[in-house]
């Protein structure tokens, strides 16, 4: 498994963009738009990231948690699976899967600390129940591959090891999009390297050519990342609140 991405469940579960960009029917019924659906996912990704800083887990754990979170909403609605509960529970489950278990009570403590909204003050019991529901929703597939490892290896190979830190930051940002559900991790890594070389003015065209990957895909992923930077730099709190409130409409 670890040796071979192509034999992994992650590889077999990759989706097309159009399959990911579907607002679940129950959410649609409540008037949630595709933009709002994406916005909630960005917002919750940031939330998972902030929680992770408090409970002190490594970035790979966060990356796995966000991947779980995004996978869940290709199958389940936000109406049934409350994002403010699903997000921390994904972090909880990912911490177990990545061998750095975080205690549920610690997580609950920081949820309360970070969250002003009374409705989001969950108990340990809520996390544990949701953990089981997530296992089911994920169909018990828990192994996720990430761009970090190929990133370092490829940068080394390209003779740019000193740009690792910069490119790593871009990889972190890719989790605010659904790229991990759509593209193989090494392609995401290559796109991040591509952006890095352009921004840092390094000419690595011949290196990319030697790789014999489909550069059109690399460039498309890069454009998507840059597009994200243009459009989602600031997310107005009010828009998030509006979107989350729609989910609470009783029908």
């Amino acid at each position, binding site marked *: 498994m*670890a*040796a*071979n991405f192509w034999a992994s469940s992650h590889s077999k579960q990759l989706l097309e963009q159009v399959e990911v960009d579907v607002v679940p029917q129950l959410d649609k019924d409540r008037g949630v738009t595709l933009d709002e659906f994406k916005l909630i996912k960005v917002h919750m990704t940031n939330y998972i990231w902030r929680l992770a800083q408090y409970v002190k887990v490594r970035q790979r754990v966060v990356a796995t948690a966000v991947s779980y979170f995004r996978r869940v909403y290709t199958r389940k609605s936000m109406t049934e699976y409350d994002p403010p509960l699903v997000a921390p529970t994904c972090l909880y489950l990912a911490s*177990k899967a990545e061998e750095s*278990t975080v205690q549920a009570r610690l997580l609950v403590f920081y949820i309360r600390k970070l969250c002003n909204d009374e409705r989001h003050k969950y108990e340990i019991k809520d*996390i544990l*129940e949701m953990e*089981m529901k997530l296992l089911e929703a994920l169909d018990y*597939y828990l192994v996720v591959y990430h761009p970090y490892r190929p990133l370092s290896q490829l940068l080394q190979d390209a003779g740019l090891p000193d740009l690792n830190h910069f490119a790593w930051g871009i990889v972190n940002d890719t989790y605010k999009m659904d790229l991990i559900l759509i593209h193989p991790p090494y392609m995401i890594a290559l796109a991040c390297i591509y952006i890095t070389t352009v921004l840092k003015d390094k000419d690595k065209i011949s290196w990319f050519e030697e790789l014999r*990957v489909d550069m059109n895909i690399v460039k498309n992923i890069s454009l998507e990342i840059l597009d994200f930077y243009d459009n989602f730099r600031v997310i107005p709190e009010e828009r998030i609140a509006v979107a989350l409130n729609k989910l609470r409409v009783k029908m």
Partner: protein
Amino acid sequence: MGDRSAAGGGSNRPAWLQQYDLLGKIGEGTYGLVFLARSKLQSNLDKSIAIKKFKQSKDGDGVSPTAIREIMLLREISNENVVKLVNVHINHADMSLYLAFDYAEHDLYEVIRHHRERVNQSINQYTVKSLLWQLLNGLNYLHSNWIIHRDLKPSNILVMGDGDEQGVVKIADFGLARVYQAPLKPLSENGVVVTIWYRAPELLLGAKHYTSAVDMWAVGCIFAELLTLRPLFQGIEVKANPNPFQLDQLDKIFKVLGHPTQEKWPTLVHLPHWQSDQQHIQGHKYDSPGLHSYVNLPPKSVGYSLLSKMLEYDPRKRITASQALEHEYFRTDPLPGRNSLVSCQPGEKTVNYPARPVDVTTDFEGTTNVQPHPMSSGHAMANNASAASLVSTRPVARSQLPLVGMPRLPNLHGGISGYNIPPHGPGMAGLNPTNIPIQRGGGQAHSQQQLRRKDSGSGIQNSGYTLQQKSRRF
């Protein structure tokens, strides 16, 4: 996999329970219980299934990490010599988790015990070689996929009973297995594992990071046990926290293999327990290596050659699973076969191994129903007769009661009747519904090929194991 768990029938019982006939309990461990059940699903009718129930962890921390690890690994891997996870179920009412496996009637612990206590005769060469080959084959698959089992011992090596997979070895119990590519924490931090009798010397001496070589040491110990019907190194375990130094276990090893030296094992001097030498292990001098006499093999035989390479002190020199599969031992008569229990050679006597005892008085909740009419052993036997597949039992009692003979459960029964039914035909491939949204086929393997550079070899090193699909790894 999994199921829509609408609780049906008004009771607390989850709907998925209706797809099984529960026959009884077949094992117990720290994680929970193992049950034998018969599938009622049309697609899998009457197939025997072992169901491992994980208790909710007591510390209020949800699904046990052991269960998560096992599910996570078993969901990714598939090999003839590794147990097959056919389903996962959840009972939301009591937050318990169930893993359903193809059932295996035998395991090496019971096979060895049967020979030692009932047959009074060693296991025939064909069977030993076939069991060992398949064990190595499964292990080679795991190691190629960067998985270390870490708890190999006879009771975790299952053997299929009657049916189209009769005599096929299945490696089980992945609760301690790890993916060893870039672990987030040193593996030793999770509490050192592996039953001490099968524990490699580098672990006993306090090595922090271990490698797949620890599994090969365990295979060496199991090989010797198959030959002699006795555990090779039966040390007395020191029970203390955390990770006490196991002096007696090391001493048992030194007695048989001779004292390790820096010439034979250059990194020995860096190992913590050797270095500190608190109990003067450096001074225990045993110089007559008596392994060949202990296992009764001529020192020049191919079998002894393979065994001694598995029990090599230096983990870096220890034979790997893929190298072991190429060893001369497997190319000399009798050649290993798929049905390890039944040789195709004429004249070889076939041993009838007993079926696994089933405690028919325990239900899924683990509560014992003392029934007015306890099921007769005849009933249990009938249940077992159709058994075909597999279970992972890790009864604690086994490791703690060496050679004393595990107290048998009620309704113990002989095995002969179990062999009178016709074998299952093909087409019993298992439930395993795949809900994979989109199957992408060979196209990606193709683009993977494209990524390989003209000058392959630079940058990312290869593992040295034979990968099923040579590819540049990420």
